[in-house]
């Protein structure tokens, strides 16, 4: 199971505790998160399903490459970290 953690900055708006999900890609991992937490989707993705411009996702310490298709692979024991970019805001 991959572990998905979220920036504390999100906690001002809604509860977003770390969760473990079974997924092969970042898109699948986020979809699994949104199944139980649908309100989170609009905070992380734009209307077309891409990562918001000022949201970044790291897998095992490195930023994901496919911000539009969310196709970066993930596997069990991966650590996915979702946080705000140091731009905008």
């Amino acid at each position, binding site marked *: 199971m991959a572990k998905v953690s979220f920036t504390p900055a999100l906690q001002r708006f809604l509860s977003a505790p770390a969760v473990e999900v079974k997924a092969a890609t970042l898109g699948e991992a986020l979809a699994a998160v949104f199944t139980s937490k649908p309100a989170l989707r609009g905070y992380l993705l734009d209307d077309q399903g891409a990562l918001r411009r000022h949201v970044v996702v790291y897998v095992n310490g490195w930023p994901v490459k496919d911000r539009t298709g969310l196709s970066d692979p993930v596997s069990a024991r991966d650590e996915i970290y979702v946080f705000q970019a140091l731009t905008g*805001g």
Partner: protein
Amino acid sequence: MVDRLHVGTRKGWFELARRGGDWEVSDCRFLGDPVSAVLADSDGAVYAALDLGHFGAKLWRRDRSGAWSECAVPVFPPKPADTGDDPHPWSLGKIWVLEPGGIPGRLWAGTMPGGLFRSDDGGRSWSLVETLWRMPERRQWAGVAGGEQPGINSVLVDPRNPQDIRIGVSTAGVWASTDGGASWRIINRGMYAEYMPPERREDPIVQDVHRLASCAARPEVVWCQHHNGVFRSEDAGATWRELAAIRPSKFGFAVAAHPRDPDTAWFVPAIKDERRIPVDGRLVVARTRDAGRSFEVLTEGLPQRHAYDLVWRHALAVDPSGEQLAFGSTTGGLWISGDGGKSWTMPDARLPPIAAVRFAQA
């Protein structure tokens, strides 16, 4: 007279209450977050649209009990593959204006990048007005202030007929629907755009309509603060006459229309676009009471030395009586008048930059 004022700022939502003749901050919420639009609906609900730098546009609603809850936000549909050359993103930038729809539960949201959305359930769900969004002319809509996204800044709903709607677009003129949004046409004639090449100067779709305001009692009377002048229409936005008597300058963003007197309106002029500051550092309100033939420059209580406040398009409001006005500035100044603009006072608060003000009843 109404006794509440809602203020949307760069750093949160504030409510002011009138106690006797004085206004004071009575509540605040979303401290630290940009509020792009506010609305107090006739059913007692208050809406605050947030424009979060990282996490996108959000919408919150306060019910009559005072409890806040997050609403749905407008969402654009999936972008079809054959629209690759569409210059505008199919994704909500921000909610720029919220207006009641004249039917219980109905709201209109004007947004960047130019989508108009409707809710029929008090903001619990939204649908894009696709008839407008899919018009081929929409691709000609130009961005706001050098940005890439156009924005719907004004939604006028005829109080006699909620199917009769006008919208103002930066930058794409005035659009009308007489069937509740099922069909649209651009209607403005008589405006001119100084900033365009001569052959396009009078083209309706290049007109930068900063803000529209109509007289509630005579909705066919509409006022416009345009990028290079102020204009008035007596036929619900179809034909426009420039009001050349405006002073001290013709540039500005905000306009408020008297709700009962169709000959009275207020503007907050500034030096034109390259600088966007008050003329001579004096903050003034321009009022006409004769349909724009002449203007008074109102200064009592307003800073007349080294004032560099600019007033954005949604940051000037008049109450239903036509006697109380309020405006807020880019430097967080907030001024309120109880005598139709003749004199102004500041509440005891130093607020963040102000995007929007709205009067309401407690």
